[in-house]
């Protein structure tokens, strides 16, 4: 099986607030450094990756952030329109069919139509070829939305195909499903934190992804505190008198967080059969390009 960095589509999933955008940006940066041409697709309401590189938001147009590194914000409304026009060809027909009360009703009722068109758009990017018939992008990184289970988005083709079996959307969803299931071309990563809820969610997400036979990428354990003091040192400093109260508390705080990290790392190693990649906690006053650079070096080996 090819290394994650050699696959066409890398999906980054996980609970909200675990650092999916950071990891997506870092994966993209690490790949771009190796000479890959990379596009990051963001599908959540607010675009973040361009900002992490200190660039203005890309919006729905592809923008270059760094050499070899591009990003685009896939939004449901625009994706729906583009997609509809690709099939319908005529703007007037689109307006007639989609911009009325009945269609609004239809769009609300159709299962996850917003997700479907967004996933369709990402797929379109991943499959897009240049005029010479080569792939436009060596790698597309999908920063997946923070759903309760992270799985809804990836299951969209399956759910949709259960209800709808004909038509152009069904055809595209079938191709998307094939790409998402292909370990030669796709890798699905999970991002988590050394805390109870994110760790539990990662365990459930991993199980559900494997049950559906999605190709298992690395598990990124983000914001890790490594142990720095021995219990004897903590005890000595804590008893060291008023001059060392602050230092003792800081050291004790650090070790209690490191202990939690060790605990969850152990739990995750025992239950999640994936390559676990630790990303150190970064003490940055502002989280920008410099921080992403550090993260990208920390995860490089796993790609």
């Amino acid at each position: 099986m090819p290394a994650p960095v050699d696959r066409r589509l890398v999906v980054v999933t996980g609970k909200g607030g675990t650092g999916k955008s950071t990891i997506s940006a870092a994966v993209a940066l690490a790949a771009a450094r190796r000479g890959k041409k990379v596009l990051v697709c963001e599908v959540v309401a607010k675009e973040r990756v361009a900002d992490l590189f200190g660039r203005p938001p890309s919006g729905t147009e592809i923008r270059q952030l760094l050499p070899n590194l591009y990003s685009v914000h896939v939004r449901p409304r625009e994706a729906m329109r583009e997609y509809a026009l690709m099939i319908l060809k005529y703007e007037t027909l689109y307006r007639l069919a989609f911009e009325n009360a009945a269609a609004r009703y239809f769009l609300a009722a159709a299962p996850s139509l917003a997700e479907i068109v967004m996933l369709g758009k990402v797929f379109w990017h991943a499959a897009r070829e240049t005029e010479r018939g080569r792939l436009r992008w060596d790698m597309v990184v999908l920063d997946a939305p923070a759903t309760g289970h992270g799985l809804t988005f990836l299951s969209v083709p399956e759910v949709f195909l259960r209800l709808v079996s004909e038509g152009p959307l069904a055809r595209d969803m079938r191709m998307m499903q094939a790409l998402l299931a292909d370990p030669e071309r796709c890798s699905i990563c999970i991002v988590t934190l050394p805390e109870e809820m994110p760790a539990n969610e990662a365990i459930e997400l991993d199980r559900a992804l494997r049950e559906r036979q999605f190709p298992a990428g690395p598990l990124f354990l983000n914001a890790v505190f490594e142990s720095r003091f021995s219990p004897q040192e903590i005890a000595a400093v804590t008893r060291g008198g008023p001059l060392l109260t602050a230092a003792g508390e800081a050291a004790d705080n650090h070790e209690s967080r490191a202990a939690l990290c060790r605990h969850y790392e152990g739990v995750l190693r025992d239950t999640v059969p994936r390559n676990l990649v630790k990303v150190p906690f970064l003490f940055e006053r502002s989280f920008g390009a410099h921080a992403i650079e550090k993260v990208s070096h920390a995860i490089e080996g796993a790609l």
Partner: protein
Amino acid sequence: MRPLDGRKIVCCVGSGGVGKTTTAAALALGAAMEGKRALVLTIDPARRLANSLGLKALGNAETRIDLTARGEMWAMMLNLKRSWDELVRRNARSAEQAQAILDNKLYQTLSTAMAGSLEYIAMEKVLELYSSGRFDVVVLDTPPTSNALDFLHAPDRVLDVLDNNAMRIVLGPMLKAGKLGLRLLAAPSGLVLRTLARFTGSDFLRDLAEFMMAFEGMYEGFKERAANVKALLSSPQTGFVLVTSPNPLATQEALFFHRALERDGIRTAAVVVNRVQRDPRRHGGPDNLAALEEALQLAQIKDENRLSERLCETLTEQAILADLDRREVERLRDMLRGVPLFTVPRLRKDVHDLAGLWQIGEYLGGD
């Protein structure tokens, strides 16, 4: 509990992973200690907290927590699918009608996957529990993924989908056309239908039409119920507590929620900032390398393996974290002027038992 401020219904809202469930449970526990009959309704609790609340074996029913208190504490975990099924059964005109809906293959998708569906059913459950008169306080822990708009507009969204009129315009001809197919349909709805069918195929549209037909006659009941849910959201007895961590992404979400509430004329009852890093420098003492080396020497601790350097680095790092958190809390206080703000420090361990909840309650102004 001060964030409750005498309110009967409290919705804890905020982004995922900020300690919403814990805060909701701590508020309910505090109310029970004050002598109230309090219920916490949760959606997706962390496993160990669920265990300590006795929620593991629970279905869709409330259970009493075993504790010594003047009042009572109850907890319940909401089951989305079962709650919708119950709602359909209650509102159906006959058992046959209920069954026809429950059997429809679109119903499951609609009830579990439609945006706002979980938020709506949660509020619906709150209304039901509160109206039962069995509880003085109901605390709702909202779904982890909810955003403000999903929550506030859930009743409208649900009604929009169930509204038969819009459906009749577009899908009515479809039912009449039956097996003859779409080509025979008259314009303009025929054109709209044919166009939509190019995306989804006509089977889906037919399923949808059948689902709506099965729903016939139930809309009025739903509408009335949804109006009550909506009224409950903006009632003065209801309070929204914004829960956040000092993480800028989380505070952003909290502020967004606050503004959405304001736009709907609802005042935020309180904001709770969890996991605030305390600054170790508040104790004073040396914080640079030379002074730390000296302090170790004075305390007769050997400076082995660069202990002084490690201590210095750790102090600096935690000062950075504390500064960032302080700045974020101040920013929040500034933007939410007039809203009571409570901070809960980062505790050394995860909270997963009643003692832990009690400890949190103290920071929320319990007695």
